[in-house]
């Protein structure tokens, strides 16, 4: 597989994706946006896993299997998250995170 691709491309892509996701998750005020950002971070992790699998243990599929698990969990998490968001917007008529601070002191 002498394609000339080396791991740093994958790590760079994954790090960039993760950073964008992190920024979104921490700075967006819209709940949906935050949820999407979290998905972005999970994707970054998946890329990392698959890439490392390719370069470190090409004969085993450990990274791929892990990635599939993460996709499954992410799907479940999104389902749960959307359900919560719908419930919250119905009760509070808002999807702004700054208004959802009733768990503070």
């Amino acid at each position, binding site marked *: 597989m002498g394609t000339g691709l080396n791991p740093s491309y994958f790590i760079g892509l994954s790090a960039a994706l993760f950073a964008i996701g*992190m920024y979104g998750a921490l*700075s967006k005020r819209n709940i949906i946006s935050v949820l999407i950002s979290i998905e972005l971070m999970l994707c970054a992790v998946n890329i990392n896993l698959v890439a490392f699998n390719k370069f470190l243990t090409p004969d085993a599929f450990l990274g791929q299997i892990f990635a599939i698990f993460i996709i499954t969990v992410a799907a479940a998490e999104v389902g749960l998250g959307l359900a919560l968001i719908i419930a919250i917007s119905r009760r509070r008529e808002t999807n702004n*995170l*700054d208004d*959802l*601070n009733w768990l503070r002191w």
Partner: protein
Amino acid sequence: MVEFALNHAWLVPLLPALAFVIIVFLTQRWKRLSSLVSITAMLGSFVIASIIAYGVFTNHEFIEKSLVYSLKWFGMEGFNINVGVMLDPTSSMMLFMVSLVASLIQIYSTGYMKGDPQYSLFFAYLSLFGASMLGLIISSNLLQLFVMWELVGLCSYLLIGFYTFKVSAREAAKKAFMTTRIGDFGMLLGILFLQIKFGTLDLVELAAAIPMFEQFGVSLGLLTLIALLFFMGPVAKSGQFPLHVWLPDAMEGPTPVSALIHAATMVVAGVYLIGRTLFLYVQVPGAMEVVAAIGAFTALFAAAIAITQREIKRILAYSTVSQLGYMMLALGVGSLSASMFHLWTHAFFKALMFLAAGSVLHALHNKADVWDMGGLIKKMPITGWTFVVGGLAIAGIPPFAGFWSKDEILVVTMEYAKHGHALGYVLFGMAAFTAFLTAFYMWRMIFLTFFGKEKAENHPHESPWSMTAPLIVLAVMASIGGLIGTPWANIWGEWINFGEVHHAEPALGLMLLSVILALAGIGLAYTLYCKDGEKKTARKLAENYQSLYQLSYNKFYIDEVYAWFTQKIVDGTARVTYYFDIYFVDGIVNGIAAVTRGSGKGLRYLQTGSMQTYALVFFLAILVITVVLAFGSPSLASIMGGVK
């Protein structure tokens, strides 16, 4: 049957205790039934006690060896406490005497307490009182005895304060309870010392162990301390100086209660306890001298107060204190026999006089001042003449009971003096002078109450038979009860004694002396209070020696001293400790709470409620950890489970 009674002696206290439970829980609503239950139980106890007494006093083995049987109460490794029964001539005599007097007092109470709204409860308390005293008598173990001792104290509290609507009664009950508490504290310390040093509280084992006290690593000084601590209990319970103050106030209770407290239960418990533990006291002559000195002083002191008191029951109360002093004196000079003999005769004549006084109060609607009475013997012949019998007995006129026992005490005190105790002569002098005073104040009261001119405003009437019948029985006992202990045929001394049986020659000189003293006292009382209708000489004497009269009439101001002491010293200390408590102790506790609350208040602002802040903190934390793991010092990295 005798065998059965001896082996089931615990029934004696159990029956009245059951009566107490039955009355309180079942029959309280039916007054006649309640008193019937109570009296039946007490009479049952009396029957069993009589059989026990018969069994013990027909078998000479009991003199040497007492009958003991016990059950394990509780225990642990190397420490066992039993409850049990200990029967010997002393306890059998006490069982008989207490159950007899208590039965008579209960019968008397049916008349005296008639119409009282708490009639049933009164009998319940009387039963419990009797039960605790009987339980105390048969105790074979000092801890068991202490429990009963406290029960006696509790019952006295309940009964002295029986008229709860009277402030004075409530105060007197509190006073009795708290004064005896001082003594109980010392006594408990003494018991603890005995348990620690000798490893047992069983009376038989202690009697065997204490003579060899040095083998247990106990010095004579420590043993003296134990004996004196132990003596504090009897000082308070038996009204010895300086803790006698509660006893005269205890007359605030109904009269049958006074009779019970003064004659059969409560106060004699202290004397009995010293008698029971005499094996301890004979080892420590120092403690014995203290017992004797306090006894003699109390006898004289109380008699000196009694000569000027005006209330009929108060005079009797001080005479009890005085007579208890005699008993302590006898114990202090080492004679269990004389002490128990006086206890026995005293129980009868003192119960008699209290009940008769109750009869008088009943007839005069609680008018208590003897100066307002007079000539009652014509209207109340049975009460009057039985009272006279009691007066003859306590004054010491032969052949009435008190003469023999008082004479015995004088004899043993004299012998104590002759055996090289210089103190003995002083004690003898005090005892003899007290005998004179006793005759004087007792007959002063009798002359003022029953003889002389009748007062027009009084309309006395003889009391019902339920009250006079016990008086007659007690009068019989007060007349002949002493004949079992005459120096010519001293059956008493043969059975009830400590150490060697002691055969004294009848001391005719001393007998003559005590009779002369008694007659002189009675004669003086007659001249002052009976012959002279206007009592001019008596009044003049009181005026001429005003300060002495006031000193005696105000009971040597002991109560005032105590009141001053509690108000100034105790309350002052209490105030200091109160402020120490609220500012210092509470300050520490509240300070800790305030620090906790304050830091919580500050730290809670970290909880912003914003998920994104939390996520940022997580992220930064992970970043820091990663950096540390990757580039940090090796030691830190290894703590973190580093990758290197």
